[in-house]
């Protein structure tokens, strides 16, 4: 039932509005709304009950194992939420002066410093509001850098074919054309192809490392040499940073610019789609171009650096300073982990992924890159199962829901047929991984013994499999009453 279907004309939730309607005669009639908007007229209890019950229809980290590859669905510590929502922190107006927020700014400054350290970059700006905006900032800085040097012929960004879709989309938003670089059979960037592709038109290369295939680019040092020698810059997509946090710094690999997904590696909540936070880090030569504002510490006080301090900045990306409350959560998480805890993130994320990969391979599942170490994630291909039973990766994914597990990422990366991209993260226990393995084995049994049941899964969710084609063809995007 929709909230609108609970609505009754003239029902009012009187506790939630100023007690008397004020008269606003000074607003000219021709600018005034004639009909009230279609908002529900429900009691406070109706709304609380409706949304509480809706929430129960979701899978989430707080209720289920959620091994969604490339999404780093790890535990979001409750303290981060509670402390980021302290009343004074919530009440501060973004346009109030720095005097009113020295405590808040201290957290932001400390976070910048910690991110510099873990990425090995010279400077950080926290302002991008999600990974994709961080990518935008990064590529825009690459562009600004070349432009500032008068090196304006560089029109192309290189992107491996396994990359997230955000990479090419971002390059285009920054006015570049995109050239895809193929992947070799081991999951690495094809070096020959890369060499053939670079040149004076190369603005840069965007790389995820470990890649979306779940493996570390072994030739990263050579890759960076090839790109740098061609005069291009190296962009590090931080989507998979959880795999190397505390083990390898992107700066040490030779990257010039990087974004982080704090909602992945620094465990801020995914919130059903966001908000994220996508800080960018840069090497020294790119620092002047960082998006504003940036926090500076001067004589024991914190202040914002703006366009006055950073005239070469690529500019402002959000009205204020980005997703401050999310940055606070990341700060709190980072302080709880500390240096030791950060080292452990990659270690245990990798341990879990390799354990899961080893057990599944042992159980007869086809691992996409069996000769490689898994990073924090790895790929299983179900092509053989599909050929033998007609059961697809999608069917298996849906059946996993019935078994109480969120599905891994399916059909990404597109290079591998019938793939499941599995990322357990470091916060899951061995016992949970074992239960997941058992469920996958059961489903494989079912694929042979009861294929129709698997094909029509899920059977225990609030709805059965949904008609996506109808959704796109007969668009119903808002309730009309």
């Amino acid at each position, binding site marked *: 039932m929709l909230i609108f279907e609970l609505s009754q004309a003239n029902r009012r939730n009187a506790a939630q*509005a100023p007690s008397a*309607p004020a008269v606003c005669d000074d607003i000219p009639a021709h600018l005034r*709304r004639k009909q009230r*908007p279609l*908002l529900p007229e*429900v009691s406070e209890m109706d709304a609380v009950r409706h949304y509480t019950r809706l*929430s129960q*229809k*979701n*899978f*989430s980290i*707080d*209720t289920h194992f959620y091994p969604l590859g490339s999404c780093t*669905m790890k535990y979001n510590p409750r303290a981060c939420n509670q*402390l980021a929502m*302290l009343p004074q*922190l919530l*009440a*501060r*107006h*973004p346009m109030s002066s720095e005097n*009113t*927020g020295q*405590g808040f700014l201290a*957290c932001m400054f400390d976070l910048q410093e910690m991110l510099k350290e873990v990425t090995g970059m010279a400077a950080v700006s926290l302002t991008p509001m999600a990974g994709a*905006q961080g*990518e935008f900032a990064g590529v825009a800085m690459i562009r600004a850098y070349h432009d500032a040097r008068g090196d304006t012929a560089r029109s192309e960004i290189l992107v491996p074919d396994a990359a997230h*879709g*955000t990479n090419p*989309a971002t390059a285009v938003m*920054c006015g570049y054309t995109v050239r895809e670089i193929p992947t070799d059979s081991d999951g690495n960037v094809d070096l020959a192809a890369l060499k053939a592709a670079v040149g004076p038109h190369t603005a840069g290369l965007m790389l995820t490392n470990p890649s979306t295939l779940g493996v570390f680019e*072994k030739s*990263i040092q050579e890759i960076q040499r090839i790109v740098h020698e061609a005069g291009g810059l190296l962009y590090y997509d931080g989507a998979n940073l959880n795999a190397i946090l505390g083990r390898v710094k992107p700066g040490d690999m030779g990257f010039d610019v990087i974004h982080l997904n704090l909602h992945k590696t620094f465990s801020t909540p*995914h*919130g*059903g*789609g966001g*908000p994220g936070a996508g800080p960018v880090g840069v090497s020294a030569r790119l620092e002047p171009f960082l998006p504003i504002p940036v926090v500076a510490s001067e004589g024991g006080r914190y202040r914002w650096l703006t366009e006055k301090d950073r005239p070469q900045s690529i500019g402002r990306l*959000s*009205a204020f300073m980005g997703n*401050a409350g999310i940055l606070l959560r990341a700060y709190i998480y*980072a302080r709880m982990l*500390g*240096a*030791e805890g950060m*080292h452990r993130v990659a270690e245990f994320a990798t*341990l879990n992924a*390799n354990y899961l990969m*080893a057990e599944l391979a042992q159980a007869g599942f086809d691992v996409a890159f069996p000769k490689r170490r898994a990073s924090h994630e790895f790929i299983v291909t179900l092509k053989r199962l599909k050929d033998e039973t007609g059961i697809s990766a999608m069917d298996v994914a849906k059946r996993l829901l019935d078994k109480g597990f*969120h599905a891994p990422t399916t059909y990404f990366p597109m290079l591998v047929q019938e793939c499941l991209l599995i990322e357990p993260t470091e916060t*899951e226990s*061995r016992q949970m991984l074992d239960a997941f393995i058992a469920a996958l084995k059961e489903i494989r049994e079912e694929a042979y013994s009861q294929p129709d049941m698997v094909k029509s899964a899920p059977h225990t*969710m*609030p709805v059965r*499999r949904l*008609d996506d084609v109808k*959704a796109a063809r007969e*668009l119903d*995007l808002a*309730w009309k009453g």
Partner: protein
Amino acid sequence: MPFIPHTEDDIQAMLARIGVPSIDQLFDEIPAALRSGKLTGVPQGMVEMDIARLMTERAESDGRFLNFAGAGAYEHHIPAAVWQIATRGEFYSAYTPYQAEASQGTLQLLYEFQTMMSSLTGMDVSNASLYDGASGLAEAVLMAVRAHKTSRRVLLPKTVHPFYRQVVNSIVKHQKIELVELDYDPAKGITALPQEKDFAALVIPQPNFFGCLEEVDLLTDWAHAQGGLVIGLVNPVALALLTPPGQWGSKGADIAVGEGQPLGSPLSSGGPYFGFMCCKQALVRQMPGRIIGRTVDLDGKPGFTLTLQAREQHIRRAKATSNICSNQGLMATAATIHMALLGPDGLERVASASHANTVALTEKLCAIPGVKKAFAQSVFHETVLQLNVPVADALRALEAQGIVGGFDLTSHYPELGQALLVCATETKTAADIEKFTEQLKRIVERRNAGPSCTKLVPGPNSKW
């Protein structure tokens, strides 16, 4: 090990199954030269008790101010139920609803969100949120240029929030789009009918950055007559009182965007907030961001799913409508609960009380000799005042009294002189308004009476 459940037994058993002697070995494909040492720049870990103490101390040292600033972020009451429900683990810790059957909670809620936003703006369809109002405006500009096909010029009035204009410029400048600044009528503080012809879109802010009400019908019809699209940039609370963009002029705006913060997002130093975007049905395939559709399941039972994904970067890659992936789902969740709790009547009361408070504040402040309104135009819940003392000094002195007195316009609009943008939402009482008035009066009088006063220097972590 905080947040890592492995026991020593687990670790040994797992390594044995993998067939490696140590965790270190799992990183053997990484060139040795790249391995980082200790993270010396990161402090030691703190247990929750210690970080709680640190954060509480920092928050308390920042304190809490009586706030009369708006300028794009508005202090409204947020019902307690909003965040108690939005932070339930099932909403808070879920991912983007890619597995629809296991995400009906989020999906239905966002469909309700889209319904509410469509209705509030008077548009046909809504997406499920963008990052914030400013970046949302940039997306709207890109969308309008895509839709228009022939022109890449967009008219951007100076009455649009200066930070929004900066953001739009940052985001669209690489795509050969020309942003044409439109001037405002210095008496009325609203956009004068421009002389432009060839343009893809006109942005109309309502209310504009000065709080002033633009002649939206006139501007909309004019833009449409020139063959341009109209992008309405609106405050969602204001829409409880003002004509929604979908009804501007004879055909309505084509795209409506804005900052969703007034609908349930705390001020929180500037974020997270959320951008909303609505448009006409015909433009839906040009819209960026996630969109939820209602459909049916195998049994014909209604259900909800992500739809029109072919627009998005994970399918369309370089040809996507935008690179956006994560949005501000949790804030949209809060906004939906917020709007459900307020209802149409509640939202209207919030809007009218906010407006009435600002009118009352303006009257009181303008009774102070040396303070006057900058514009004659009608406003919604925000207004520009001109002082005969430096605004920066006045704000500093007010801050010393625990008051955030508004936004200093002098650097962005030097032509307005010592101009201050003030706002009093429904959260302000008559006593609050009185307090602000008394303090500003005292400050202006003292400044006008004596010699230039010594500049006050704030200490760290104090409200001096």
